[in-house]
């Protein structure tokens, strides 16, 4: 049940998948679990579809966490989001409105093979776990493998590098599965949110070039309000802006691909912290990180629902 699962600790992949199965059974009015396919090592790619069931047309928001294996606070937030949504559906008018009017597709662990590997072998693993026939190094950067200026600036052609773009776009089954889903449902999906760590930033396109997106006005105001709301919780400052200027130029990212493929509002969060703990954000900081981020995400989605075309 929701109270028994501890959302303030990091969970293994098996625990997270077991939790998803459990919610699927116990909250069937608001949750539907399905699989997009299988990872390179044969693991299921589970998604939670969250929202009140309706025959009518509903817009949707896609949220993924754990694209990079070592960024554990991402999957922790995805779980927190689902928990909060279920717990506050009846008591929070804003949450009720969101779940009644929209669906949320939540992928708590995108890079299931890498996440498992970071639990069992190498805590600081980043990439997927695919093999390369010509090199002894494994894995592709799942955030450089999308078909948008693929393998250009900010990505590497070398299989041993942490930003390896892969042998070709969507070479990774995880990337291909999500890309196929987003292509198929792009008519409904209005926002794409991807959660990473660490830098305390809220980013929007473009990553691959220095240019302003056509719908900059709505995106920028959504980002501004989100970071303002986030800061109101515990005083934590997030920078925000186009990824190329705020962070660095990188090609082949999921956020840019989502935007290019017709999802008008695409964001990437870089969660806490800014380097004191880095990827080792202590479990006691899961709660404050997730509560502030929750407010930011609700803010973005409410803004998009009300203010943006």
């Amino acid at each position, binding site marked *: 049940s929701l109270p028994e699962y501890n959302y303030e600790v990091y969970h293994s992949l098996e625990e997270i998948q077991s939790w998803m199965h459990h919610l699927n059974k116990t909250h069937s009015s608001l949750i539907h679990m399905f699989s997009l396919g299988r990872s390179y090592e044969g693991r299921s790619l589970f998604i939670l579809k969250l929202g009140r069931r309706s025959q009518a047309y509903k817009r949707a928001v896609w949220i993924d966490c754990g694209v990079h294996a070592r960024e554990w606070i991402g999957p922790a937030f995805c779980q927190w989001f689902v928990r909060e949504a279920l717990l506050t559906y009846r008591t929070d008018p804003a949450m009720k409105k969101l779940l009644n009017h929209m669906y949320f597709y939540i992928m708590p662990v995108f890079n299931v093979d890498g996440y498992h590997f970071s639990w069992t072998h190498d*805590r600081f693993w980043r990439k997927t776990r695919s093999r390369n026939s010509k090199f002894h190094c494994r894995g592709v950067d799942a955030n450089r493998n999308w078909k948008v200026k693929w393998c250009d600036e900010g990505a590497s052609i070398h299989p041993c590098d942490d930003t390896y773009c892969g042998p070709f776009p969507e070479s990774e089954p995880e990337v291909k599965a999500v890309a196929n889903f987003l292509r198929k449902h792009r008519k409904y999906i209005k926002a794409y949110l991807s959660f990473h760590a660490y830098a305390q930033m809220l980013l929007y396109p473009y990553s691959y070039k220095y240019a302003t997106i056509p719908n900059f006005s709505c995106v920028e105001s959504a980002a501004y309000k989100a970071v303002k709301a986030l800061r109101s919780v515990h005083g934590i400052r997030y920078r925000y802006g186009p990824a190329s200027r705020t962070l660095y130029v990188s090609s082949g990212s999921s956020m840019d691909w989502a935007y290019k493929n017709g999802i008008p509002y695409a964001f990437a969060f870089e969660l806490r912290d800014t380097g004191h703990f880095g990827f080792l954000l202590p*479990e006691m900081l899961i709660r404050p990180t997730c509560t502030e981020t929750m407010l930011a995400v609700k803010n973005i989605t409410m803004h998009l629902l009300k203010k943006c075309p």
Partner: protein
Amino acid sequence: HLYNNRYAGDKVIRLTPKTEKEAYALKKIYHQLKVDLWQPSSIVHVSEGTVTDVHIPQNSSQALLAFFQEANIKYKILIEDLQKTLENGRSLQTQRNRR
């Protein structure tokens, strides 16, 4: 110990090259030692003014820190012992569950 104690003595240090010459020196040594770069995600992004966080193994930390001192590149140790930080980051419940 978690991960068979493999991170014992490893450090995470922060360097911000103040000139392109320092940036070049860092990129060179990062490439040679194939370091685990925490930020930015790639060595190509390292330039003057870029904050770089790098995880260095225990067996090369002395040599690396000596190199930085010799090259007069200022650094800050973010994490003194990665294994300790990793283990201290676990809540009491997680530690109990592991036991």
